[in-house]
């Protein structure tokens, strides 16, 4: 493949928003002395494990479509650009919130991001982007920012549904919001039962955040809007019947039940219309 100062264009067709766009992967001279190194690699659902063995399941659950990876070099230094095309902006936001840790934005990047000298984690529209600096040399940070911005230039802004706005604001702990789309994403927070017991199926988003309650103690709240009430009721009944064996139902209510977990913390599951509203890690039995 002929190289030079030309930009190679790799197309990721945007589906679901009625428009087409292209992500342009920078090749050379996005920063002085940096050149692309080798051909770009592409991964699809079936072979994502070849790139992130053991980590692919999370991306697949959130709705992964394609990945494009390009390496860049200057002398002995190497950067890589990983552009993940997700199904939707919500999918990309979900994976971003899972991966970014405590958000530490790097100045100069023209998109939501978190990073430091070794890695930038970036979100724009339905794209989740990593810029990796494997030797961790802080001198490469300006080049990382330039590389990120060059790639971001070609990504269009897409209207975003404010899923997380459905979470109540009062008492919410800053930077604790997450989107959940299945058991892999839920795994670090809580186990309600085997498999995909909340039946999110990698299709339905739940919104999760931490809140400050009595005595300033932190608890978590997960709200899942199902498409129809019948489905929500089915999930609720399945959950109550197959609740994790490490959880014990203490009492039932007209539209829900209270449980205690293995650390003697409490939770409550409530069915409200087509939504499941679940609170857990409570330090006292929730009042009805």
């Amino acid at each position, binding site marked *: 493949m002929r190289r030079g100062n030309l930009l190679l264009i790799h197309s990721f067709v945007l589906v679901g928003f009625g428009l087409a766009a292209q992500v342009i992967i920078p090749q050379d001279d996005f920063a002085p002395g940096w050149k692309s190194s080798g*051909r770009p690699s592409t991964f699809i659902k079936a*072979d994502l494990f070849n790139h992130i063995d053991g980590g692919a399941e999370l991306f697949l659950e959130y709705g992964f479509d394609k990945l494009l990876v390009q390496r860049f070099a200057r002398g002995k230094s190497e950067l*890589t650009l*990983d552009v993940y095309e997700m199904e939707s902006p919500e999918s990309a936001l979900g994976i971003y919130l899972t991966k970014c840790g405590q958000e530490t934005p790097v100045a100069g990047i023209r998109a939501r991001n978190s990073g430091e000298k070794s*890695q930038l984690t970036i979100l724009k529209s339905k794209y989740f982007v990593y810029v990796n600096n494997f030797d961790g040399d802080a001198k490469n940070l300006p080049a990382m920012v330039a590389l990120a911005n060059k790639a971001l230039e070609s990504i269009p802004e897409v209207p975003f549904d404010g899923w997380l706005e459905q979470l109540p604001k009062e008492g919410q702990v800053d930077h604790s919001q997450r989107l959940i789309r299945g058991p*892999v994403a839920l795994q*670090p927070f809580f186990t309600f039962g085997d498999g995909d017991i909340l039946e999110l199926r*990698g299709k339905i988003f739940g919104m999760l955040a931490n809140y400050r309650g009595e005595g300033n103690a932190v608890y978590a709240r997960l709200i899942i809007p199902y498409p129809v009430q019948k489905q929500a009721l089915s999930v609720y009944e399945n959950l109550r019947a197959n609740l*994790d064996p*490490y959880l014990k139902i203490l009492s039932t209510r007209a539209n829900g039940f209270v449980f205690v977990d293995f650390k003697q913390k409490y939770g409550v599951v409530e069915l409200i219309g087509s939504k499941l509203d679940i609170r857990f890690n409570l330090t006292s039995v929730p009042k009805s």
Partner: protein
Amino acid sequence: MKKRGYGSLEPENEVDRRQFLKIGGAAGAGWILGNRFLWSHEAGQDAPAQKTPPPRPKTNLEDALKVPKTKYSLPGPFPGKVVEVHHPDAMKDEKPNPEVIKAMFEKGMTRLTDKNLKASFGLFFEKDDVVGIKVNPVGPGLISTRLEVVDALIAWLLAGGIKRPNIIIWDRFDYMLRDAGYTAERYPGIGIEGLQTMDEAAAEGKTQDNSRWLRPDGSHVSAENFDKDVFYWADVEGPKDLPYLNQHVFNGKYSYFGRLLTKKLTKIINVPVFKNTGNAISMATKNIGYGAVCNTNRLHRPLFLDVCVEVPAFPVLRDKLVLNITDGLRAQYDGGPDGVAKFTYYFNTLFFATDPFALDMVCHNILVQKRKSMNVPVNENPRFTEYLRSAQKLGLGVVDDKIQHIRA
């Protein structure tokens, strides 16, 4: 790094979970629940939701359990004993301090065995042993097993009388060993062996030429490196596509043990790194459980943590794995199993145990505390350590309140 993974005795389980252990034992029929939760879904697909827990795939674990134990069988001479050695100067500014690490090694081995370094050798080895050192090269340079730890181990083995060619540093993948610095130039006279190769260019889609790993008869060039007579069988099919075969050598229901382990090594030392995998850990039992056999990706979803118990239960590991040292010089509390720099920190700690299950229980609990301190979500459901308790039920380790966690 390339992208490619105080003198006190105290019980490890700070929470009284007895009631829940009883529940878990009943619900899981004495076996592991966590894995099915972890991976028993069809991610990103339109699979019907499961109303009842999926059945656990059958495996050939019973075959392993029928074989009588030897004097070297797990959990070794010190069931439940874990020694933690910390030194603030072990690693600074990206540079490990070989002298400090060597001293930490001596301290750890001395406290583990209650013998001096020279005498401790005789507990595990004879001079004609062929000793394999299983490192973890995933995340090379960032979170891989430090060469300086392996240096200390080799010096101990040589001093005990093991010949250089009879020491073999190994991992499943040859290219990962190279990337992590385990080369013939760095270790003259010492064996460096990957159980298999993988064509990275083909795996990354950079070439359609599969001839570097795929033979005309459709077999992988590393196929003979695995012993078809010694295997972990699970009723789960590996995918039939070429990318899978490239990475996993075989793709049926058999995960064969490396011939290096079945035919050549007489003892094994396991040197994992201190890191997470999701909400669980990827340390001693995962390093050896997933590192000793091929065709593993098929096992992630239905048997993720079970593999960390069942594969080491086979005599080829159970009777040869004599020592485990978890390298926590630089540790990683989130983002694993791949190396992610922002989640790493200088822990400057080494852990020593003959019992890998006790070792993982100790390290799991330490990692949980670290994750909490860094405001990383933690799910403390006992499912995530159920596999370790299962190992105890099989007589492979001690993970309950009989654990001796010694901070030396």
